Each structure stands twice: as C-alpha cells, then as structure tokens.
C-alpha cells in the first residue's frame, strides 16, 4: 500500500506540493534532510515499480512464444549423460510446497473493466471535515473506514493538499510510526476552503502530464 502511495505521490511531483523551505537553522536543515531521505526512498520505490512493470511487459511478450519441450526422440534418449540435479534440498522443498499449495480458482481479471473511481476531492473534503471537528487525528483513524487501498491513497493525497495549503501539520515520532495530523488553520484561511478545493482539483488534473492521464485515472 505504501508503495502505491509513494509512487502516486511522485507522480504528483511531491516536491511541488511540499512547501519550499528557507534553510535558516539546524533544525530546518535536519528537517530538510529527513525530507530528502523520504524523497530518495520514494524515488527508489517508483523506480523499482517501473522496473517491475517493464519486466511484466517482457514476461507477457515472451509468454506468447513457446519453446519446444518434447521428450527426446527414442534414438537420442539413451544418449544423455547422467542427470545432474542442480537443486538444493531447500529449493526442492519449496518447489513441492508451491505445487502442493491449493491454487485459487483462476479468475479472469475484470478489474480493468469495472474500475472503482475514487475522487481525491471527495476524500479531501472528508478528511478536512473530520480534522476541523476533532482538531487532531491519527492517519489510521482518518482512514479507518476506507474499504480499499485507493481510498487510503486518496485521503493521503487529500492530506498533502491540505498540508500545502497550510491548514494541517504532521507529527511522526519516528519513521513508520503512527502519523498524527493536526488541524492548524486559522479561522481566516479556513474560509478559503471552497476556493482551495477548486484550485487543488485543477492542479491535480494537470499534475501528471508525463503519463498523459489525469489524477483519477491514476487510481484505476
């Protein structure tokens, strides 16, 4: 799940979403380094995700070509040198286990036909309302009612939008620990929500021009 979040985040050009910081003291510097590290990790996630997509493409292409796997003609069969079992006992066991694990019934993938569309704007509105009411919530709590990864991603992206607008702040004690989100909007900026909404949507739509598709398509 985090991979999806990470790569999508990059698709949105996370750098642009994060506020530009003026480095003024050590604390800022540390923050910046932490941010760079996060960014480097996210880049890495995305790189391997793309590499995996490339491998999947190769695999698909190659699976349409069939090599010949036919037993040797009788006149040759006896000539083969002694067989060499090039396999460790552990791998041998793993192969048996792989065959003996019950296979799920093969299903025709139709996900690409009936795609649940997830709107970032809707989820941003949900997140905003809850935070305004509660003041502070964990990310877990904010996403506890999500029924799919896509919805979690949408809420995360919504949060990033709100963060960029300066109405929320994040607290995280350590990497991978619980993420807390605080509502820090002053009543004045709060009033600009409706407008920020529209602006946010417009920018999200153009956020991934490289892929030639808009944000919501990104989730399909």
């Amino acid at each position, binding site marked *: 799940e985090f991979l999806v979040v990470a790569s999508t985040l990059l698709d949105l050009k996370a750098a642009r979403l994060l506020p530009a910081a003026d480095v003024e003291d050590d604390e800022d510097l540390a923050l910046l380094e932490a941010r760079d590290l996060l960014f480097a990790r996210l880049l890495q996630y995305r790189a391997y995700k793309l590499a995996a997509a490339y491998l999947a493409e190769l695999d698909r292409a190659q699976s349409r070509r*069939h090599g*010949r*796997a*036919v*037993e*040797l*003609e009788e*006149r*040759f*069969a*006896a*000539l*083969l*040198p*002694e*067989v*060499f*079992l*090039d*396999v460790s*006992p*552990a791998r*041998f*066991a*793993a*192969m*048996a*286990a*792989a*065959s*003996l*694990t*019950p*296979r799920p019934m093969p299903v025709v993938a139709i996900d690409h036909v009936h795609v649940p569309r997830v709107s970032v704007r809707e989820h941003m509105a949900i997140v905003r309302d809850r935070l305004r009411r509660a003041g502070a919530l964990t990310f877990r709590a904010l996403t506890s009612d999500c029924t799919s990864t896509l919805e979690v991603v949408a809420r995360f992206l919504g949060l990033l939008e709100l963060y960029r607008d300066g109405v929320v702040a994040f607290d995280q004690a350590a990497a991978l620990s619980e993420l807390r989100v605080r509502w820090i909007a002053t009543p004045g900026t709060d009033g600009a929500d409706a407008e920020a909404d529209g602006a946010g949507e417009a920018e999200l739509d153009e956020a991934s021009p490289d892929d030639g598709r808009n944000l919501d398509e990104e989730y399909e």
Partner: protein
Amino acid sequence: MNPADAIAQDTATEVEPEAPARPSTAPLGDPALLTAAVEAILFVVEAPVSAAAIASALKRPEREVAASLANLRGQYDERGAGIELRDVAGGFRFYTRAEVSPQVEVFLQDGQRSRLTQAALETLAVVAYRQPVTRARVSAIRGVNVDGVIRTLLSRGLVVELGSDPDTGGGLLRTTELFLEKMGMTSLAELPSLAPLLPDLDGLDGIDTDEL
C-alpha cells in the same frame, strides 16, 4: 477483395463482436499465416497430429491444412534442413533428419546438457514428497498434463513405477536410489519438512484426498 470475402468478413464482424480474445484466428484465411500456424503447432506437439485435428482446431478446411503441410514438408526437404516433417501413424510430426543424427548425438553426449527442466524438477518434487503417487494425482496437483515429464523422469532413472493404486489401478510412482544419490541424501527422511512452508498441511491433505 471479392464479394465472397466481403460477406465473410461482415459476418465475422457481426457474429463475434464480443470475442476479441482470438482476433488472430481471423486472418488465417491468409495461406502464409495458416502455414505458419501449422508449423508452430507441429513444433510444439509431442505426438503426431493429423491434418483433420489441426483443421478442426483452427476452424479451417482440412484441404487448406493439407496444402500447408505439403508446402512445409517441401520447404524443409528442399533446403536439406536439419528437421523433417514426417507423416507417421496417421499424423504429422517434425523429427531431426537422419543425416545429422550423429551430430545431435555428439552434442547430447557433450556433457553439460543433462540438467532437468524447471517443469521436470517441480514434478519430481511432487513425486518425492507424495510418493507413492499416481500419475493422475501428480497431474492434478501440478495442474498440467505431466505424461511427457514423467516419461523423462522414468527414462532418467529418477522415478520408477511400482505397483498400482488399489482404487484407480493407476501405476504408483516413487523416487529411486539414484534420485537420493543425486540429491546427496541417504534416505527420504532427509528431505526438508514441508510443514514450515505449508502451515496448514493437514488441512491440505484433507483437501487433496477429497479432491483427487
């Protein structure tokens, strides 16, 4: 395009609009592509296959397939290829040409060519852990036809067929001493336990027994 073709094409469009799964069977009307399909089929089959069987699978008239077969055979013969298309036991199959069998033999005996394929290893693993086991059972576990692979394992002396299943009458496969030797083991007890790899092995056994 003659009128008949036009009609055929229209019909095809109407009849199979929601069957894009096999779009490539349509252009088999092209003799060159039909010949290519026949050639590819003959390349992968283990047992000789008749023109009628190919024709029925490709949904083309048998005479067209017969023409492709004759064409292929002529091409391979003409250029003195290392492979020839032979008409045996009521079907067609590619074989290596007798003239080059000495070279094939030399190559096969050259040493490094004696590894088992991934499929053969996987099947051997199933036999090793489930022995004694029938071929049908192995096939069901692997989810594929294993006849060819089992023949290879038998001919390589890694498994034997001993006794038969009291219920189905199918021959029972077991691994051999040679298998143990090649694995560097002295007994089957040395095979690593599957339990950590299959947390619910008992349940699985139940399923297997019920299903197969």
